[in-house]
């Protein structure tokens, strides 16, 4: 029996562990190793050059600019997405006409709204990015957005071609793509809050907005924090959005470049500087870990069990 147990454990773990070890953990470890070499696609040998690649990154203006764009995405996209998600979830679940004795009421047709809001979530980022690239068509008479704006008397923009607007355009699409997920997530969270709590607060004379800010929001804090981490990961990446939508991969004038795209270009286009790209990967890992640690730290609070 004992013998059988260990044979079973090894039998079940062998394949998953082998796949994970070879394709995930080993590349992860190798990344640190490669980041200390001068390896490029042009030379077959690699030489250890210590922290030279990291020194290069620190002095690389383009890296800092890309990182700044990631930080902007990290600050703006999650805030806007989660705020809109909470707003719509509140509208769906509490904004309804009160029927009889119900203390809070969902809006009529909330299921239908949720189905539509969730659409972008099931679509590939590739589909979303290319679709919006067409909507942002800069031609004043041919672009959908420009034609629509002309209808209300606003002049045409070049959108993704405008260095000042391009990053904001990409952010808007990221928000558009992700709000639905949080509406559904927060709705599920709100549905799990017992109605007695709402009834108590309504009996105490609280109106709906007070109820929302003083009751619903604190009880949803855990879900919001998780959502924040998810959105942060999406914002730190943003590779597919930027690569597919921006002009010239991160343009105009590198005004939309992000670290993952810079890494990709460094590794697979600009003379295949593998060592340098690997070092950027390590830098990204550090930024991601700092972000995750900060979020979890800030979100830590006493749980209310219900």
């Amino acid at each position: 029996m004992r013998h059988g147990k260990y044979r079973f454990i090894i039998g079940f773990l062998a394949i998953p562990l082998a796949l994970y070890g070879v394709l995930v953990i080993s590349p992860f470890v190798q990344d640190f190793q490669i980041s200390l070499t001068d390896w490029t696609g042009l030379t077959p040998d690699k030489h250890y050059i210590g922290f030279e690649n990291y020194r290069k990154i620190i002095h690389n203006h383009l890296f800092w600019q890309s990182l700044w764009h990631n930080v902007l995405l990290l600050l703006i996209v999650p805030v806007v997405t989660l705020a809109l998600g909470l707003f719509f979830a509140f509208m769906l679940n509490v904004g309804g006409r009160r029927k009889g004795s119900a203390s809070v009421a969902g809006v009529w047709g909330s299921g239908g709204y949720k189905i539509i809001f969730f659409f972008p979530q099931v679509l590939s980022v590739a589909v979303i990015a290319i679709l919006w690239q067409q909507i942002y068509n800069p031609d004043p008479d041919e672009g959908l957005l420009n034609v629509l704006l002309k209808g209300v008397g606003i002049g045409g923009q070049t959108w993704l071609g405008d260095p000042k607007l391009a990053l904001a355009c990409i952010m808007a699409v990221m928000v558009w793509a992700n709000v639905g997920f949080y509406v559904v997530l927060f709705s599920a969270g709100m549905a799990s809050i017992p109605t007695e709590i709402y009834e108590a607060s309504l009996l105490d004379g609280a109106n709906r907005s007070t109820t929302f800010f003083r009751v619903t929001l604190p009880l949803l804090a855990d879900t919001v924090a998780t959502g924040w981490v998810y959105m942060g990961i999406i914002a730190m990446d943003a590779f597919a959005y930027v690569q597919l939508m921006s002009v010239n991969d991160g343009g105009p004038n590198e005004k939309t470049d992000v670290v993952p795209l810079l890494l990709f270009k460094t590794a697979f286009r600009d003379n295949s500087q593998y060592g340098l790209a690997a070092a950027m990967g390590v830098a990204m890992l550090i930024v991601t870990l700092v972000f995750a640690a900060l979020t979890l730290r800030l979100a830590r609070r006493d749980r209310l069990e219900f």
Partner: protein
Amino acid sequence: MTTDTIEDATPGSPPRKSGTPASDTTGWKWRRSEGLVLNAFSHVFLVVWALMVGLPLLWALWSSFKSSGDILSHPLSLPTHFHFDNWSHAWSKANMGRYFINTIIVVGFSTFGTMLFGSMAAYVLARFEFPGNRLIYLCFVAGMAFPVVMVLVPLFFVTTNLGIINTLPGLILVYIAYSLPFTVFFMTSFFRTLPTSVAEAALVDGASHTRTFFQIMVPMAKPGIISIGIFNVLGQWNQYLLPLVLNQGDTSKWVLTQGLADLAVQQGYQGDWGGLFAGLSIAMLPVLAVYIVFQRQVQAGLTAGALK
């Protein structure tokens, strides 16, 4: 469960007592009107957002039936007559059909593999005590936190050395490996919630551990397997970065997202905008159709990880 509103979730909320004091009734009325204003507001905002989400998708669909000249000169107009040739161009000339089939093959095998290997590992980690259990679990879970883009360079060379770069089986193996962290994390906690008595009874009756897993535990874990299965199907169907780096070779092996990105670049030169919108629709419609049919399961599956 996720689509239930608060009201639906608790139909049995206690009825309001009759004979409430007068002051309460005025407050009640005031709240009622507040409710009506809020209700109207809610619908306005909700409809605006629904249009903002729905119209771009509809626009892509109806543009796919227009001639390329029409798409540019009258971006808003509905198609005057239906150019189905856009669709046949996209399907055969732009190879979207090939990419579509490749994607189905890759996602089919990789989701199956992910669920099989992920559940196997999760079951062992959830139910058996052995040295290293905790370490292996943490290794898998840590994989959820780090960005895939970070390991692109070494992953490129690992797959090259194994000879699986630019092949569909290679892509399948990589998808499985990178889907394991979340699958193992979720399925481990799922297996922990299941009762142990049924499996113990099966073991006492002489079933082997393997048989107990496949015939007793897997059917019991079906709800969890379906949720995470949906999560993996969508995630792998929509994957863009991994095929871009690991499947850049022969175009006959490309997946949909690669083909679509290429189509967007190509049509920019050739001016075949109808073909591009048809390609977008080919990539978009099947997923949306499946989603509409299984919307409850899909919403539950995708939000499952964030809720617990």
